[in-house]
């Protein structure tokens, strides 16, 4: 399994990453190496096997519908350099 440059760019777009032109070929190669290694999972027949999402076989315990938290407005907004007293700010988005 390998990907070409176009697919590389599509993946980078989905991941919101820039791949500088001069690194494209090296990264492409590096990814293809990993993908080759990954291919080995196809060595096994898994037709009758159920996927295992978590190693612990357990059900989630839901929480009660209660308000257990309070406002963190100050603490949260102060973590961003681009916020005013009320909102986070991002470059204007046109919908």
């Amino acid at each position: 399994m390998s990907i070409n440059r176009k697919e590389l760019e599509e993946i980078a777009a989905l991941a919101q990453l820039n791949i500088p032109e001069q690194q494209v070929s090296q990264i492409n190669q590096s990814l293809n190496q990993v993908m080759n290694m990954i291919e080995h999972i196809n060595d096994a027949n898994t037709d009758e096997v159920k996927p295992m999402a978590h190693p612990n076989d357990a059900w989630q315990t839901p929480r009660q519908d209660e308000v257990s938290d309070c406002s963190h407005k100050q603490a949260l907004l102060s973590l961003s350099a681009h916020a005013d007293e009320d909102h986070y700010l991002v470059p204007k988005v046109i919908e």
Partner: protein
Amino acid sequence: MINLSIREMSSLLASKQISIQELCGVYHDRCRAHNQSTNAIITLNEEFNADQILQAEKQLNGNQLLAGIPVLHKDLFCTNNLKTTCASKMLANFIPPYDATAVKKLNDSGMITLGKANMDEFAMGSSNEHSAFGAVNNPWDLNRVPGGSSGGSAAAVAARMSPVATGTDTGGSIRQPAAFCGITGIKPSYGRVSRYGMVAFASSLDQGGVMAPAADDCGLVLSAMTGHDTLDSTSSKQPQWQWKKPNSPDLTGLKVGVVSTWIDELQDEGIKLKTLEAINHFKDNGAEIIDIELPYAELAVSAYYVLAPAECSSNLSRFDGVRFGHQAENAKDLEYLYRTSRTEGFGEEVKKRIMIGTWALSSGYYDAYYIKAQKIRRLISEDFSKAFSEVDILACPVSPELPFKHGEKIEGVNMYQADKYTIPASLAGLPCLSMPIGFSENLPVGLQLIGRYFDEQRILSVADKYQQQTQHHLQMPEAFL
């Protein structure tokens, strides 16, 4: 002082032969003195938190064994008001407004936070060469890597900059650096330690654990970290476990499984020799050695490198330059903000894994890779279940190689393949540890013990019994004495 166990330190504190401030001061000074050479610490707590000292004194009066003992936290754990960087430029100045549950539990036991340990960025790596704060050097040979991703934690403990450190293990990130640095390190069963506040890399694999010279130290601290947490839906509801140190080193009745193919294939003769010696030690003390097969384990690395990157690619999407962390300057539009913040903030290895993960989840590949890898995971887990119907623990290598020199290994599939002995137990969620079993070419060698689900007590007991009769865990690099 610095070669005392936690129990011994605790006894000194309890009998007032030393105060909490003095004890922490000793280690604080060592951190200052040795960080230049090891680079094990990213953030040193300049002033001890007065509240923590107070709490520690209270706990000491209540006979809490861990009260007043200093601890270093891997910089992947959120610590309230103390910078938490995950060794990444993305979080270089991030100060969380909350504590990870694991950290809170140790605070509640009276432990004192010394600082935050260096690591591979976002827990991705096996050499601690992928840190935005510089590589960590192995105290046994500063030209060599300490292992990763919990390299800073391991190096700091090996150099006795701290008596104990927390680490995290997703595919071997506690065990391998413990082996490389000649200390004991344990990854508990998945779900034992709450993941709340532990920055997520691969959610279905990550576990917080402990690194210290001895298994006994690990047991004491680990049991304080465990317990069901309502803030973590994957946290297990197993009853609280308390570590009990075994009285005798006798192993009669213990069935130890050995994957002989793994040992036979070891290319490093030194590691092979030490491994066989350790297994013989078990035999000499009454254990029965049984040959075991794990047929699907050879697919573990491939499956892991689908699952872990996939989960991390999604977990790391929250780092977008909007609400916290690295934010690109002069962003002209939203896409620029996202792409630039993330490209500038993440290191190369992290970006690579995000790309692999994004690809593995993308349409057309999801079933063929992600789902398939989860099926392999189940097969591997079943291999272990079968093994544990015949034996009580497994003893196996940690790493096929000794600690290598900086820059010697280019990150890539070679590096990934070196995790082949640690990844299987991670996929199965089993408790596992690495303990020091000697030296080869003057470099530490470790042995991995893997137990049944929730059987931390047993693997730590076996390690402790071994340490009752051997001295490897007491060794320290001369340069740091």
